[in-house]
């Protein structure tokens, strides 16, 4: 299996008695963008969160099945969750920088993992901000508060923060839903650049966004994975009637 690839096998997920995801199997190839689409409540965000065990934080949840990263089950024995979340970074719907300086936001992760060397930190901060296409806009104000930049810049800062710990996989939960079209376009371009180095999995409410940026698209409905495949195939000639009805706006 290629490095940075992810594979889910027969995954079931429960919130208490509620069976939220039914026997999901899906491969997310390395260095590709895979997007999840589906109406609200279909389970796509829940599924995304199973990929770095974010659901562990919610009481009463249970997972059956396996999520393999480079062949190794993240729900298996001896998995260090901190290490897992370092390998599988996450960016959320609303940009949520810490109330600290721009520099400190990006340096937070490496410092938490024990890095103290100032020169090394400077280098990581610069590289991460460059990768997130934010460096040119903030290089002269790294010490200013991260709360003072625009929404689109904040989201790119959060992406830089996620990149700073050198992940392999990046999960994004509706990363542009709170952004204007220009900031959205910047993030979308960024995703295209980032896939050279990372495997990206994104949940989006915008079908056009999924069509624009992803290599593979998976359609979820009521906790089932209805159809997945190459994005062109899903949007040009889906096989399942439910997929076709959803993407053409006949239900949802």
């Amino acid at each position, binding site marked *: 299996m290629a490095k940075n690839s992810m594979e889910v096998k027969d995954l079931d997920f429960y919130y208490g008695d509620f069976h939220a995801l039914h026997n999901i199997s899906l491969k997310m190839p390395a260095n590709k963008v895979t997007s999840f689409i589906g109406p609200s409540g279909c389970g796509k965000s829940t599924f995304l969160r199973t990929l770095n065990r974010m659901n562990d934080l919610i009481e009463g949840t249970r997972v059956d099945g396996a999520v393999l990263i480079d062949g190794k089950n993240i729900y298996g024995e001896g998995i260090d969750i901190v290490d897992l979340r370092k390998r599988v970074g996450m960016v959320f719907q609303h940009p949520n920088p810490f109330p600290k300086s721009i520099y400190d936001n990006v340096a937070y992760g490496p410092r938490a993992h024990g890095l103290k060397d100032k020169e090394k930190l400077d280098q990581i901060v610069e590289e991460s901000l460059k990768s997130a296409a934010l460096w040119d806009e903030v290089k002269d104000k790294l010490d200013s508060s991260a709360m003072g930049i625009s929404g689109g810049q904040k989201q790119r800062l959060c992406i830089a923060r996620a990149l700073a710990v050198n992940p392999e996989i990046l999960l994004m939960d509706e990363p542009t839903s709170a952004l204007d079209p220009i900031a959205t376009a910047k993030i979308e371009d960024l995703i295209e650049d980032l896939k050279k180095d990372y495997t990206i999995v994104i949940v989006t409410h915008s079908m056009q966004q999924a069509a624009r940026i992803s290599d593979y698209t998976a359609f979820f409905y009521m906790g089932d994975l209805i159809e997945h495949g190459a994005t062109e195939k899903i949007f040009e000639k889906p096989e399942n009637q439910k997929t*076709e009805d959803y993407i053409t706006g006949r239900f949802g």
Partner: protein
Amino acid sequence: MVRDTFHQKLEHLNQDLLKMGSMVEEAIHKAVTSLMEQDKELAQEVIDNDDVLDDYEAKIEQECIQLIALQQPVAKDLRRIDMISKIVTDLERIGDLAQNVAIVTCELENDRFVKPLVDVPRMAEIAQEMLRECLDAFVNSDVDKARKTAQMDDKVDMLDSQIFRELLTYMMEDPKSIRQGNYLLFVSRYLERAADHATNICERVIYMITADRESY
């Protein structure tokens, strides 16, 4: 996210295309009738009406572009809109061919036909039927009907070559019949081309429904 407004607009577009289709069918019928009955007035009506068809084509194309720009259709909706904007081109061409037949009517207004026209009206009938059937297949998303209709084109091609052989004989026997013979050969070719455009429409309807290309 049910898109009622969009689907209403799409339905409206279907209706416009059907309306143009029946106008084109009528144009062929009138053009060939005008030739048979040497009715110049009827021929003139067909010629004058061609502008209306051209306007219809432009209007439908505009509606297609607008739906694509404003509604971002995908999958079968996108194929339908794309095919409609191609089908109108075929329909407009068939309209032009009907007009060409009407122009021949005007040229042969005072001629006595060298022989009774039998195969020409048969060709026209088949071409009209193909047009009706392919538009029916379009409305009902009926792949089988589209395939069957496309196969009717063979009969039209056969009649075209039959007419060619026959008229050639007449023209060889009597050079005075060459002018009329040529005009009638044109008519035969116009109708053969009209049936080809109807075949194109069948292929587009098949693609619209199945997303796969088939050629006839």
